[in-house]
């Protein structure tokens, strides 16, 4: 039977790490209790103290791990309500759209360059055929849109029998000037919900042949702008 004195001597013969181990095994409960206390009020402890408490020994570490699992298990149980998948999909789609059209502005610009090129070629062809002597070159800003680049048009697209609908380029134009002009074409009213957006200036190419909803969708590519339509009224936020 080991006496207290012998035990002390034996302990004295142990390395400091081993002695620490013996002490810790005797105080496991104390350590775990200290862990629980710390977890009740972590702000009262420094990072170092927290690390020391959790990593004091394998038992304490294991206890903390189990508490992590217990917490997860509680969340797992509490979190069984069904997800509204339609709402989630919608919200995701809103995130997805701007991304898919990540280069939306460039695409719009590119498509209009395409329009200008095609109409330029058509324009030139007409010139050759008719042997016109007209000297002035077509402006790149406002060009006769002889061919329609859009093969399938949205249902709300305005169709014109004439082929002289021109894309209009607004360059650095305040929204309060640009939008009413566009809206007038579609016979809709514009409401600005705050004055800040009125003064926003954009470079925007408007193709009057496009439907109002397409134009709104293009306008919504601008980050600072939210345009919505309700019947004959466009609201700008």
């Amino acid at each position, binding site marked *: 039977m080991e006496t207290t004195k012998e035990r002390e001597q034996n302990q004295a013969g142990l390395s400091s790490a081993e002695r620490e181990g013996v002490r810790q095994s005797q105080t496991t409960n104390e350590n775990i*209790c200290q862990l629980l*206390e710390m*977890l009740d009020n*972590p702000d009262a402890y420094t990072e170092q103290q927290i*690390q020391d408490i959790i990593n004091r020994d394998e038992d304490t570490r294991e206890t903390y791990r189990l508490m992590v699992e217990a917490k997860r298990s509680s969340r797992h149980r509490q979190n069984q309500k069904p997800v509204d998948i339609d709402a989630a999909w919608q919200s995701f789609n809103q995130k997805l759209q701007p991304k898919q059209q990540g280069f939306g502005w460039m695409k719009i610009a590119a498509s209009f360059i395409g329009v200008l090129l095609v109409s330029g070629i058509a324009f030139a062809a007409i010139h050759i055929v008719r042997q016109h002597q007209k000297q002035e070159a077509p402006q790149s800003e406002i060009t006769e849109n002889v061919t329609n680049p859009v093969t399938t048009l949205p249902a709300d697209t305005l169709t014109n029998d004439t082929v002289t609908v021109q894309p209009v380029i607004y360059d650095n134009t305040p929204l309060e000037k640009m939008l009413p002009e566009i809206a007038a074409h579609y016979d809709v009213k514009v409401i600005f919900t705050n004055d800040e957006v009125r003064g926003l200036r954009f470079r925007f190419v408007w193709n009057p042949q496009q439907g109002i909803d397409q134009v709104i969708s293009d306008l919504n590519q601008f980050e600072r702008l939210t345009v919505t339509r309700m019947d004959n009224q466009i609201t700008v936020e």
Partner: protein
Amino acid sequence: MLEQRILEQLFRRYYSKMIHLASVLLGDDEEAEDVVQDIFLRVADSDIAPKNDNYLLTTVRNACLNRIRQMQLHDKVKGLMPIEDEADLQPIDKRLERLEDIAAYVDEQLEEPHRSIFHLRFDEDLTVSEIARLLGLNPNTAYKYLMQSIQQIRHHFGKH
């Protein structure tokens, strides 16, 4: 870029499971949503659809663990998040089953007031002093009971 129709199918099929896992790991619904939507944005960008939910769930877990890794230590312990990298060798389904088993064990095997203390601590996030006050116990007794419950569960489920 993945076809919208396929993306929607994947989303409708796996979103709930993914969001559940993210919520369990992060304990924050908004963050969970963020993680899962980010993953679907990446899926939308890729050309090949993931074949099963294993890939998606593993991606969710990794993204969550990354977020946890970046948290401050104080926030980690407040939310009872792991403070060390987890060696997650077990499949996620098995992990979730284990969580289910722990919850069932608590409900079926812990006795009162241990069970109530456990629920108040982990479900309601009350501190042990608050629990003690609520149940009219000495705080030290409440600590002791909580500790006993944890030891009992540890003993039952064995070490990792």
